[in-house]
């Protein structure tokens, strides 16, 4: 029989908060982490905005010896994991370790360290790179460092499905526990792509938002008629997932229960999002949770603020939820924390979980010009408090056509 899976720990480091409380407070207040970047390569960029983790100093978290082997995206992952484990007051006994694991999502892993190596070889023409370059850049390093740090000897898997990577990582961790392969999983995602090369690559694809002329922090405008694209962000979020029985037995505080998840592929175009594929993911996630469309009280949208993406997601929601669609609050918190790529699914699922916990819905900011093709309740510009939430959904739709939908519900014992 399928087991119930609960969330007992939350950890996050993001452009709008370095712990879950700060993160959610800023979302509710509509504070944006998007800004004009201050980097030494800023003059080489045509689009100069991003959502960095503010005032980040690795030495606040790691010793010099540790830092020689863990690069930025690993650092973020370890910081989020540490918070999540502490929040869960998680202790794993020796005999439990083979049934404890980790799944993480990332788009490009240690892209920054790879770029450093390229600069040495191709630009400075130095015939060697840092000896740890392979270990710094490999996509599975974040999950592996978490596994090593907490002695998790069960599954250790990294998913790389672009923008849905960490939603899939959480969904697959949920299945590991539900289907009896593991009892405890750390799951989430990490990304650090505000690098010269990665920014240029995104720039070239013409999907990045243009800087708002009046206010750089207002550049990401999901569902607004004047939207121009996404803003790259960085950071990590990690959750502790646990077999419900184990969590109850040890008296853990339970944030919520994961009740539904599924993924689908558009199988149509490498970048163009497709409402049909998204509809299939949402429908089968609802099915897996045994829920009806009217059971969903809030959707954290994928809402990247690209012209096509926001329309397709709106269509998909309308298709699945029918008449109920206009009654569900749907917000894109990317308007504040930006698009964290491989980490974004985990960050946004966490926003949805915190919404559930606080009975409060974070807004979509910068939404002042309604688009007739985007006609749902996007919670424009102001968060809502004192709402009753019981079940929340988080959508993640990726380049490559990989869609993932997660559903969580207030735990009722």
């Amino acid at each position, binding site marked *: 029989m399928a087991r119930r899976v609960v969330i007992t720990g939350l950890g996050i480091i993001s452009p709008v908060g370095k712990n879950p409380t700060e993160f959610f407070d800023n979302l509710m207040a509509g504070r944006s982490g998007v800004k004009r970047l201050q980097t030494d390569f800023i003059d080489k960029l045509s689009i100069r905005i991003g959502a960095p983790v503010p005032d980040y100093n690795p030495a606040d978290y790691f010793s*010099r010896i540790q830092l020689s082997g863990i690069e930025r995206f690993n650092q973020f992952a370890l910081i989020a994991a540490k918070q999540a484990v502490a929040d869960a007051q998680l202790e794993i006994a020796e005999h439990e370790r083979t049934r404890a694991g980790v799944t993480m999502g990332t788009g490009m892993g240690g892209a920054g360290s790879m770029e450093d190596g390229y600069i040495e070889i191709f630009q400075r023409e130095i015939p060697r790179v840092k000896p740890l370059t392979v*270990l710094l850049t490999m996509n599975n390093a974040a999950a592996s460092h978490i596994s090593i740090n907490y002695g998790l000897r069960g599954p250790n898997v990294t998913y790389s499905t672009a923008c849905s990577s960490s939603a899939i990582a959480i969904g697959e961790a949920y299945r590991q526990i539900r289907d009896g392969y593991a009892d405890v999983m750390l799951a989430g995602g990490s990304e650090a792509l505000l690098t010269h090369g990665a920014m240029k690559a995104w720039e070239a694809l013409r999907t990045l938002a243009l800087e708002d002329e009046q206010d750089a922090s207002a550049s990401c405008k999901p569902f607004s008629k004047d939207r121009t694209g996404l803003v790259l962000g960085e950071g990590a979020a990690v959750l502790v997932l646990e077999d419900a029985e184990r969590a109850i037995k040890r008296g853990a505080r339970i944030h919520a229960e994961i009740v539904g998840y599924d993924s689908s592929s558009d199988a149509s175009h490498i970048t163009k999002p497709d409402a049909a594929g998204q509809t299939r993911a949402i429908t089968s996630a609802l099915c897996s949770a045994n829920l009806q469309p009217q059971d969903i009280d809030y959707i954290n949208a994928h809402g990247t603020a690209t012209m096509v993406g926001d329309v397709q997601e709106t269509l998909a929601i309308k298709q699945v939820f029918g008449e109920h669609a206009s009654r569900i609050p749907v917000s894109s918190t990317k308007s504040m924390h930006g698009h964290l790529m491989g980490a974004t699914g985990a960050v946004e699922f966490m926003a949805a979980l915190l919404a559930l916990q606080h009975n409060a819905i974070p807004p979509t900011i910068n939404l002042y010009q309604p688009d007739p093709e985007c006609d749902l309740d996007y919670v424009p510009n102001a968060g809502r408090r004192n709402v009753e939430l019981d079940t929340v959904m988080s959508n993640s739709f990726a380049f490559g056509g990989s869609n993932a939908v997660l559903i969580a519900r207030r735990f009722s014992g």
Partner: protein
Amino acid sequence: MSTLQTIQRMMAEQFELEEDKLTPDAELEALGLDSLSVIEFMFNIEDEFNIKLPDERVELKTIQDIASVVDRLIAEQGAAK
């Protein structure tokens, strides 16, 4: 400054270690350096002394081991600054 002293200073800086712990016979592992940290350190050693480490693996257990290897390579490669 002798090779040993330079190495001690570099180690103190790179890994934020207290200099009085960095005695010649201090074991690298006991200082908290695993094999990867040592590889990383030797990369910087190459730059500092303008030498090239040979491809064959050398066993390095203590700070003195590093100094001895460096001195030997400087003599062989005649490239000290």
